[in-house]
């Protein structure tokens, strides 16, 4: 075990972890955060997408070692079921989920885009989101939800 302090969603979290643990398992099993999902463990589907500093990463392949001092954000940082943030609210308004397993990763992938480019056009959104997979076919609504936030002069906070 190694001692490490991760800054997750704005809070410092001192943890004792196996030194080779990827971030996903620390988030899910040691911080009880459900947002990042295990989908493939191979960096192919994006269900585990979280933001480290300002970059989207696959939590399943990102070692915890080396994340000390970095700002890790999961979907839980965007808001709650009771008080959803703007992007979450747009996903709820557009009912942009079927099974919803991919959705937290979609939200974080979209969030990273909107932070760097607040008003992307649809083609940019499609290309940016192409790294994340959805199997139910909710893509059209996911795009609508992102467009809604991208269009409403909106700040993401």
């Amino acid at each position, binding site marked *: 075990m190694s001692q490490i302090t991760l800054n997750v969603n704005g809070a410092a979290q001192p943890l004792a972890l196996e030194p*080779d*643990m*990827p971030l996903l398992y620390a988030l899910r099993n040691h911080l009880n955060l459900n947002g990042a999902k295990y989908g493939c463990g191979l960096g192919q589907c994006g269900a585990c997408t979280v933001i480290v500093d300002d970059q*989207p990463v696959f939590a399943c392949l990102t070692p915890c070692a080396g994340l000390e001092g970095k700002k890790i954000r999961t979907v839980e940082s965007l808001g709650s079921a009771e008080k959803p943030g703007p992007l979450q609210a747009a996903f709820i308004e557009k009912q942009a989920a079927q099974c919803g397993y991919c959705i937290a990763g979609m939200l974080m992938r979209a969030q990273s885009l909107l932070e760097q480019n607040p008003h992307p056009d649809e083609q940019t959104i499609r290309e940016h989101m192409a790294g994340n997979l959805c199997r139910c076919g909710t893509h059209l609504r996911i795009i609508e939800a992102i467009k809604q936030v991208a269009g409403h002069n909106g700040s993401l906070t």
Partner: protein
Amino acid sequence: MTSHFLKSRTLWISVAVLAVIGLFGAFLLMWRPAIDPIERPTTFDTAQLQRGARVVEAGDCAVCHTRPGGEYLAGGLPLVTPFGTLFSTNITPDKQTGIGQWSLPAFKRAMRQGIARDGHFLYPAFPYVHYRRMSEGDIADAYAYLMSGPAVHAPALQNQMNFPMNIRPLVSFWNLLFLHGEPLKPVAERSEAWNRGRYLVDGPGHCAGCHSPLNLIGAEKSSEYLQGGSVDGWNALALIGMGQRANPWSREQLVGYLRADVVDGHGTPAGPMRPVSLSLARLPASEAEAIAEYLLSLQSPHSVTETTPTTQPGPPADHSTGALLFTSACAGCHGPAAPMREIDGRPGLQNTSALQASSSRNFLKTVLEGVPAIPGSPGPVMPPFAASLDSDQLGALAAYLRQQARPDQPWADLSSTIEALRQETK
């Protein structure tokens, strides 16, 4: 006084005459006429189109002339050169923004001399120095294929070239120095496959464009033909002496690699070679086999240089951090229990060119950038790790894996290479 006057007058006239001659010469050198626009041809010979499709594939036209996610052959891909950034152009038969008004002679002139239909000079990033070596028939077939496709309206993006290379006519001087070479003639004593391979390598495939070192003004050093170059921060392997080096290439390995397979001992192409290999994979296998036959016949003028072990001073390095990082980030695909290894029998990372090479660049570039998926097509993919591993971790991981591949030759300068690569990709 008079003589002075005369002298100065003579001098003045001489200067003027020289200037006129110079200007005229420069004019001749730097001016090319436009070739009349035509109406786009509408009928094509099916067999010719099929041949043309293969020529365009072998010439990797789409590799540069299609932007990721963009329309086929409509250009827009940024090409970063030491002289600035160029954007590839639209070579669909669109009348306004593509080559829809180009006649076959205009197309041939572009392919052999690097002059656009309207007479402007094309930058040599367009490999006309190689395409000029193609056969008449192949150029005509490629033309027919290009003209038969859907016209896409896609205006050229503004190039961002530095002075003085933003002045296109200056390319004429470059051409004066470097534009020679004639259509390739078969070498009688060599096999058909060898000749085909040489044609593909030196003509449409323009391998030397990346695999030869470039001089200060961006021309291939002909004295170091195919001795390795660099492109987009990747090392392009030396293509001579491939069979004789410390990590030699067999014919089978090379054919597989050229066709984007994963081969034991070398891995699979990444970076700019990936789309090239995917193009080759769409051609009959005989094409890659011909290329392999030719390349493996090229002997290195130098003896194998990579084998001298650099003795490692001091105690053996501690690779425990690298090993932990491998378990954490890599083993899911590259560990012995991974399905890629168990089911597909893919090689361990130590058996890849990237880790066997004397330079760490290609390994580091692959980890930083990954191998992107081709939407809808199966094939090896790898996520980018640029944001998942910091530079120290990348260094530790590289050192650990290099130690497994070449314990006698650790990579030097890992941290400076990593920093340089991170700067380049920013």
